[in-house]
């Protein structure tokens, strides 16, 4: 397997949506190709860092304000009918 072929399968490997045979081929490649190992490992870390990060969390005070605004607008919209999605 070439590095470019490994890269094409990288997402499927990380998302665990590949058959056993392809997985074995990819892991065989990872065992000897240090560059692909690093790319794979650091891509996985990239995803995990973003997934676990707290960027753009909704602050509680803003959340309360938004809820109140949403429910008030919803109730008053009952009179004016549905909007186009």
């Amino acid at each position: 397997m070439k590095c470019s072929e490994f890269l094409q399968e990288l997402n499927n490997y990380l998302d665990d949506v590949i058959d056993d045979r392809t997985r074995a081929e990819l892991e065989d490649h990872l065992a000897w190709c240090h560059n692909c190992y690093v790319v794979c490992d650091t891509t996985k870390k990239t995803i995990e860092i973003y997934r676990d990060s707290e960027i753009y969390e909704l602050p509680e005070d803003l959340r309360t304000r938004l809820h109140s605004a949403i429910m008030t607008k919803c109730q008053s919209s009952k009179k004016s009918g549905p909007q186009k999605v």
Partner: protein
Amino acid sequence: MGAIQPKLGEPTSEELVLVQAAKAGDDSAFEQLVRRYDRNVFRIAQHITQNREDAEDVVQEAFLKAYGNLGQFQGQSKFYTWLVRIAVNEALMKLRRRRPERMVSLDEEIKTDEDSVPREVADWSPNPEQQYSQAELREILTKTIQGLPSSFRTVFVLRDVEGLSTEEAAEALELSIPAVKSRLLRARLQLRERLSRYFNKAQGGDTAQ
């Protein structure tokens, strides 16, 4: 090296009960749906618009439209996927209004210099996020993801931050499955490449720009 674990689980029957009740006119059921997904919608809106005020508007408008159109929700997809589609459309509209000089479309295929070929292959330190304070890390992550084209950023956020499946992301963004897959790969690789400047083992984190 194991696979990454998905963040969101399957929809619960509880969600279906809430949607049914909300459709029947129970506003407290709808309010519970708002509580369940407001954080997700806010994050998605912030990522797309990159503007706090716009994100607040998007959250309100998305839930208001969902409320007004509950009758049209057929239940063939998850309520959350349907809500995300509404929120993404609202957020893109905001972005287009704010940056009329740049066409913003999720359909465009973007070719960039730093496409899918990794150049930076130095390993990262074992716990890269611990090299920085929480505030520094947040700044690095925000700045890095803001540098991605919006069509890549949106796919990455829906798939990897919010935990939608490829099929759900395709449905929410009205894109084909191959388009979602190709953008996700490029988004992941570009983010990895850019973060390597900060997390590179040899750099020790203190010389990154």
